């Protein structure tokens, strides 16, 4: 599934990012590498989402959320 479908409070495992290499590299540098565990801290009504990754908080816009595939992780 894509990260956009994840619910607030849910934790998931990152599988892949489908985006241009610059953006992808930036996300990887910020810690979003395949296999990392992400937890959704909050999500807006129609807007961006905040995820916890490696002890820091990253806000991600809708445009990129749909391009990140994740799988469920038991909480």
């Amino acid at each position, binding site marked *: 599934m894509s990260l956009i479908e994840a619910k607030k409070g849910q934790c998931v495992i990152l599988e892949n990012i489908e985006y241009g290499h610059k953006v992808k590299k930036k996300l990887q540098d910020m810690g979003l590498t395949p296999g990392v565990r992400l937890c959704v801290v909050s999500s807006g009504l*129609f807007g961006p989402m905040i995820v916890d990754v490696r*002890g*820091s908080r990253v*806000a991600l*816009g809708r445009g990129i959320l749909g391009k990140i595939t994740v799988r469920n992780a038991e909480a």
Partner: protein
Amino acid sequence: MDIFKIALAGNPNSGKTTLFNALTGSNHYVGNWAGVTVEKREGRMQHAEHIMDIVDLPGIYSLSPYTLEEKISRDYIQNENPDVVLNIIDATALERNLYLTLQLIELGRPVVVALNMMDEAEKKNIQLDLEGLSAALGVPVVPIVALRKRGLPELLETVVTAHHAKAAYKPRRFNYGEEVEAFVREVELKLPKSLKADHDPRWIALKLFEHDIEVQKLVSPLKFDSGHDSPDRMADLRYRVIGEMISGTASLEAIAFDPLTDRIDRVLLNPFLGLPIFGLVMWLMFYLTFNLGGVFADLIDVFFAVHLSSWVTAGLEFLQVAPWLVSLVVDGVIGGVGGVLTFVPNIAIVFVMISLLEDTGYMARAAYLMDHWMTKVGLNGKTFIPMVLGFGCNVPAIMGTRTIENENDRLIAILINPFMSCGARFPVYVLFASVFFPGNETAVTFSLYILGILMAMAFAMIFRKTLFKGEQSPFIMELPPYRFPKPGDLGIHVWEKVRGYLIKAGTVIFGASVVLWFVLNFNFTGQVPITESFGATIGHFIAPFFGPLGFGTWQNALSLVSGIIAKEIVVANTAILYGLSDTAGAAEFGPVLSQAFTQVSAYAFMVFVLLYTPCVGVIGVIKRETNSWKWTGFSVLYQLVVAWVMAFIVYQVGMLIFG
């Protein structure tokens, strides 16, 4: 006595500038969000018999640059040969911060790690084995609290030692597994000697594995194939190495986020309450600026207009100074400069409010909350931060656009920023609103700020659809934990800004006031009545341009033209122009002013001042940041046109309704 260079490198918001200020005694801008520093700054300090040239750099997540300001950091660290790289890392986000540390170490220059924010780490009960960490990294690790200047002497000693032991320093080789190591060996074998002399060959190899474009250029015409997905694997492998390091040296709390921040965010970022609360915060900001600032402003105004003017007049007349000189000092200087200084309290409050947004960490949240709406006009939430900064002054705000990744997005952000009404335009609104809309000053002024925001949004959309078509860049931004602003720091920041405003009043505005006084009192034949002066001639020449907008008098034309030097000059000029006929000075020019305008034309005038070409400072920064005369010229012209058209609409429609 030895002199050496130290580069401060680290993730955004890790406390580099705080440390820089503590070491060099400077007052550079610190804020609690990622991307405060956007240019390199140098400072010098002495420690025992050592002189250290310290360079503060923009924050970076990695040595592969992504945005403009990150490139500044990488270029410096890589090409300027600092003697020691001082890597500041945030102890509460160790895992993410060490990612850069590994790369800095691989670069091959002596590295010292300053483990910052130890106060917060202690509060969170993070247990760290510093010796273990230092051994794993192969570089010294010194715990500090930059904010309270704790641990700095030890840090400096360590830096000096690292500098002296430079010749013997060998960077640790982190083991990334056989595939990477095989690639590294291949590259090391094929690299020419000349390259190996200047750069650590292992570093070149690892960067090639990451497909780093700069390093690919460096080794060309040689080419190495590491497979198309090797950058992904490299990032993963680095984090694996870090994971092992951390599991051996840090307790579990090291990866938990600040719980208090979470509790606050549950309210402030609530999907339903978040935006209304943000609206309230902005409203409060303006409310306090108008009302609290206004109370002090009135006191100052009375001081300048009534007391100072009459004392100085009396004093100069007692000294039997020529009447024209008395007029120059009282009408020109006190009238002009005083008219501007009256607004110092309001300006100070704007800056207090903006600093509070920045220092607490709410600024990054504002970007998050606005992302949806910014997306609607083709930008993303990050662009909102320079817009808010624009309420203070557009010059640093436009520099702040450097953190925007996409070049097109950045150009749009630069072009729309001047519509955000800066502090210098505020005096014009207050002056006109208090004469023409008494009782409704706040509402009138607020409406102009809103109009500015709407125009900025509208033009973002227009530019996106016409000049800068293309894909929207995604919103990616780190959110810091909330922090309590330090009153001392806040005071220093605001004072720095207010000082800038005062200096401008004392130099640019002062000079312009004197020049204007001459222009209004002389022509080729000598001293003449104001209506025959140079000023009147120039003004008459331009005035027809403003006729359709309802304020086509020569006085206004002259004010608006000189206002391009600095927008406060519009106020200074108005004070001089309409105050001249009346020796009591600025306080009593209300009645005179009200003969020159109607309510409708006064509002059209304010709309014009809001939107027209910003001051020369902004024009200069647009030139520097776009590096193009074409865009600079475009920005000047389109704003002039937009201002004219909007003021025209306001005046003509207003006349139909109220006229």
